[in-house]
């Protein structure tokens, strides 16, 4: 027994209600929330409802199933079948008939009610889902000042409805896959049939089918399993909690993965330039959006390079500093007991600790922590000559700049540390070597067969319209380069 519902593939209902009830009781023998309720249909036929307490909408179940069954009037000498009950008695909107025991178990576990009829080897699955959801809220990590403010929640069906509300077209395809041996998590593949690349879709399904894992509790379980470079520092699948972003990605010919139980939806293929795009870029004036985007590129460079380059300058290349600045740095470092390299690494580590503890703290304590950690401890450490002010400034500048590119946070973290170590050992040569290796790796990776840097491949005006700047909407004539169906406007589809 693998623990999956598929273990019961070879079992089926016997048609004898008592035996079938015993079968369900046996399957869920250690589950205290399973409910089995026997009902008589019009006083002539026995049947029973099998469901999970807390997962069904009791009022809806009572009205559309129980009341309908109890108050039904059957023609004389009729032994009702499951099909007859579905067509003539139940009030429920969504009723399915199945002979497959795994399908019945899935329905029960997903909040539906299974109706077993005496004398019938098939059962009815009635949609009575009623579990609580968090509701539509603006995602904390993707707040915007202007534009839609709705975010996904943990119920995949609601999330799919939110996407569909944005794209009112029958071209929107939604395919279901179940992943996780024990969790049997529904994963929905969404794409626009006329825009999505067939090969990418095929490759995605192949990779999804290969996932062999006990359970999927978040979309990151899938992201890490399907990514092209398992140990790379750059992510090759996008993640968002906003339906407008997913809809925009689908319109560019990308594919979205909606995983039940998490508000985070994956989009792919994912390109390097997407790390610098923000949701708000498309909702504000293009001039402001373009400046913000250029700032993000600059901030990425600053976040990655400033601590390392500053360290290289004050430990290897004094000649590149103006004399007065060098003397000023020298003065401020007098009395600091630790070397510049260790000081820089320690400050970076302290910043990461502050960031991590700030995330785990209750929100109202977070501000106090930043004041205590950033201002009080920082200033006290400088005054006590434990650290020097210039290094604190360099690391803080890098830390602040890093916040501008949240999608590259892990890459920034690693590159920052690698740069500092390389600069401490080799000076600026180390910095240029690391930069060259990083660029090589960026240009070497791909996301589902699409070059990660496809956007930079041919620097023509149309291709650059949404890379370093955000062109005005009337000028955005084509979809991203990886999409074979390029034309977005005019005669295009």
């Amino acid at each position, binding site marked *: 027994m693998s623990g999956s519902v598929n273990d019961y593939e070879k079992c089926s209902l016997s048609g004898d209600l008592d035996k079938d009830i015993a079968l369900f009781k046996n399957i869920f023998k250690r589950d205290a929330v399973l409910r089995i309720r026997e009902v008589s249909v019009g006083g002539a036929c026995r049947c029973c409802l099998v469901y999970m307490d807390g997962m069904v909408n009791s009022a809806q179940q009572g009205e559309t199933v129980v009341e309908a069954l109890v108050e039904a009037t059957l023609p004389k000498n009729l032994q009702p079948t499951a099909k007859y009950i579905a067509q003539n008695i139940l009030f429920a909107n969504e009723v399915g008939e199945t002979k497959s025991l795994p399908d019945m178990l899935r329905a029960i576990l997903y909040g539906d009610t299974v109706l077993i009829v005496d004398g019938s080897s098939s059962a009815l699955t009635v949609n009575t889902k009623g579990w609580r959801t968090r509701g539509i809220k603006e995602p904390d990590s993707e707040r915007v000042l202007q534009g839609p403010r709705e975010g996904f929640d943990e119920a995949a069906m609601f999330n799919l409805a939110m996407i569909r509300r944005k794209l009112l077209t029958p071209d929107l395809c939604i395919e279901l896959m179940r992943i996780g041996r024990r969790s049997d998590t529904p994963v929905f593949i969404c794409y626009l049939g006329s825009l999505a690349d067939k090969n990418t879709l095929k490759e995605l399904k192949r990779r999804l089918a290969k996932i062999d894992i006990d359970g999927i509790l978040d979309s990151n379980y899938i992201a890490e399993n399907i990514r092209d470079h398992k140990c790379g520092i750059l992510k090759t699948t996008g993640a968002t909690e906003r339906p407008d972003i997913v809809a925009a990605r689908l319109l560019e010919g990308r594919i979205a993965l909606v995983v039940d139980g998490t508000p985070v939806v994956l989009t792919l293929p994912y390109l390097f330039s997407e790390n610098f795009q923000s949701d708000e870029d498309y909702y504000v004036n293009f001039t402001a959006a373009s400046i913000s985007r250029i700032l993000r590129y600059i901030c990425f460079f600053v976040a990655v390079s400033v601590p390392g380059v500053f360290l290289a300058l*004050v*430990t*290897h290349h*004094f*000649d590149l500093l103006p*004399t*007065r600045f*060098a*003397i*000023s*740095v*020298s*003065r401020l*470092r*007098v009395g*600091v007991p630790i*070397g*510049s*390299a260790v000081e820089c690494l320690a400050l970076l580590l302290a910043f990461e600790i502050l960031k991590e503890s700030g995330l785990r703290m209750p929100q109202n304590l977070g501000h106090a922590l930043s004041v205590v950690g950033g201002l009080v401890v920082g200033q006290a450490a400088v005054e006590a000559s434990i650290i020097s002010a210039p290094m604190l400034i360099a690391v803080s500048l890098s830390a602040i700049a890093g916040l501008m590119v949240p999608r590259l946070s892990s890459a920034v973290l690693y590159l920052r540390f690698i740069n500092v*170590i390389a600069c*401490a*050992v*080799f*000076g600026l040569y180390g910095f240029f070597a690391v930069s060259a290796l990083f660029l090589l790796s960026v240009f070497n990776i791909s996301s589902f067969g699409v070059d990660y840097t496809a956007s930079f491949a041919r620097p023509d005006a149309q291709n650059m319209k949404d890379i370093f700047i955000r062109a005005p909407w009337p000028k955005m004539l084509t979809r991203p380069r990886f999409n074979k169906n390029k034309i977005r406007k005019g005669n295009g589809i």
Partner: protein
Amino acid sequence: MKKTAIISILISLISLCGCAGYREIQRGYFVTAIGFTKQSNDFGIVLETLSPSDTEPSGEKSNIISGSGKTLDAAYGEVNQSLTKSLYFEHCGAIVVSRDFTESEMSEIFDFCTNLYTLNIDAYVAQTDDVTALFESKTADESVGYSIIGLIKNAGNNTFSNQLYQIKRRDAQTVLPTVSVQNNTLVLE
């Protein structure tokens, strides 16, 4: 296996080179000018260094350090003995030599300067009658080195690198600009 071997070699390379050239900025004096003098048969070296000022929070002060010996290395050794910190020559703006050096002694001085591997090769070279008096003169700019730069930067290409280039080509040596002190002011003759 191959990957592991490459990574191991790279890590070893990093650790074996032992942070070559790593220096702490506060553990040294910034030399702004070097002077070479001749005292009977001895060589003398006079250095002007800049360090943070004790009185002004954001200012700097210049110090004169000197040493002498039978050879330039011996003179430099004496200078080093009197110091508690290293000497950083990256910000050296001027090399001043005494007028009474012979051509062979000048070559020796240039060799010595070449061996100071961190020396700023764009430092200007000048000559004077009395190096010590020049270094000890109080100028408005505080640093003698930078006062000399201001004085001679427009008087032809007299940088150390250019002088070296001419020596290598065995060209006739250019006449170095002469700097002197008159009423506590540096003057180009």
